[in-house]
């Protein structure tokens, strides 16, 4: 996948996590893929073996959304709800997110910003936790501790260290 190298994830300040990715499409299409249920259900499926049976979106400031994913093997479901705070077509979405079985306390606020350049769209998604405690609880899960160290840097350094260690 030619854009797969553009995926980046980093921690920002005390409260934020930032994910960026470039897509080969105009921003209106990326916006549609993020906000039209029939489109969201085709890509935001979670890990292999999961599907997204419920995707309800009321796309306006104050409107609600609800996502449910299902493990097709054991039937286990995981849901997430939130409220849109701001919707600027093809540019910016701000929404809260809470998982049904929250693995962190409090809620988070997602801000998605789309910037188009040379018919490519850069997506920047900022996840803001409502307190340092919440973000730190999230950061304690291993992936986010890794993110604090800058995912990119680790991604580069780990395999080379491992290779050297094995050949030493």
């Amino acid at each position, binding site marked *: 996948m030619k854009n797969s190298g553009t995926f980046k994830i980093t921690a920002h300040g005390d409260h934020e996590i930032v994910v960026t990715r470039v897509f080969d499409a105009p921003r209106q299409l990326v916006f549609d893929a993020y906000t039209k249920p029939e489109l969201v259900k085709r890509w935001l*499926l979670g890990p292999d073996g999961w599907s997204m049976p419920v995707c309800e979106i009321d796309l306006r400031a104050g409107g609600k959304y609800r996502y449910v*994913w299902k493990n097709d093997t054991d039937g286990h479901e995981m849901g997430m709800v939130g409220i849109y705070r701001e919707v600027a077509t093809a540019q910016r979405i701000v929404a809260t997110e809470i998982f049904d079985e929250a693995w962190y306390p409090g809620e988070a606020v997602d801000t998605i910003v789309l910037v188009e350049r040379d018919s490519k769209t850069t997506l920047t998604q900022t996840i803001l936790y409502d307190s340092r405690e919440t973000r730190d609880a999230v950061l304690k899960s291993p992936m986010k501790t890794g993110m604090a160290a800058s995912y990119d840097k680790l991604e580069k350094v780990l395999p080379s260290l491992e290779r050297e260690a094995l050949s030493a």
Partner: protein
Amino acid sequence: MVMEPDGYIRSAPRLDATFAALADPTRRAILARLAKGEASVTDLAEPFAMSQPAISKHLKVLERAGLISRGQDAQRRPRRLEARGLRDATQWLENYRQFWEAQFGRLDALLREMQSSGVRKRAKRAVAK
């Protein structure tokens, strides 16, 4: 959204210690040195302009994280890299990257499809005129 699907991204608590240990540049440099072969605490302290106690603290963190171990020589107590600790961390990051790349890869495919059907629709409209 950062998804944390059940059992997929939750991993052994040791990974927490591993990633915390890797978050420090001095500790990564120590690992890079040990990747070339085992070394004593004195050897390790030398390039860092750091006191031995300061280096020892970093080594303790690395040891607890399962990234290094102590050799047999009772006098030198050389430290050596534990490849398995690194392999677990690498594997974990790889899983995480794959998780998001699977989502975004599907999104790439969907966007391509949306663009080509958009082109077809516009072409049809042009023909209809």
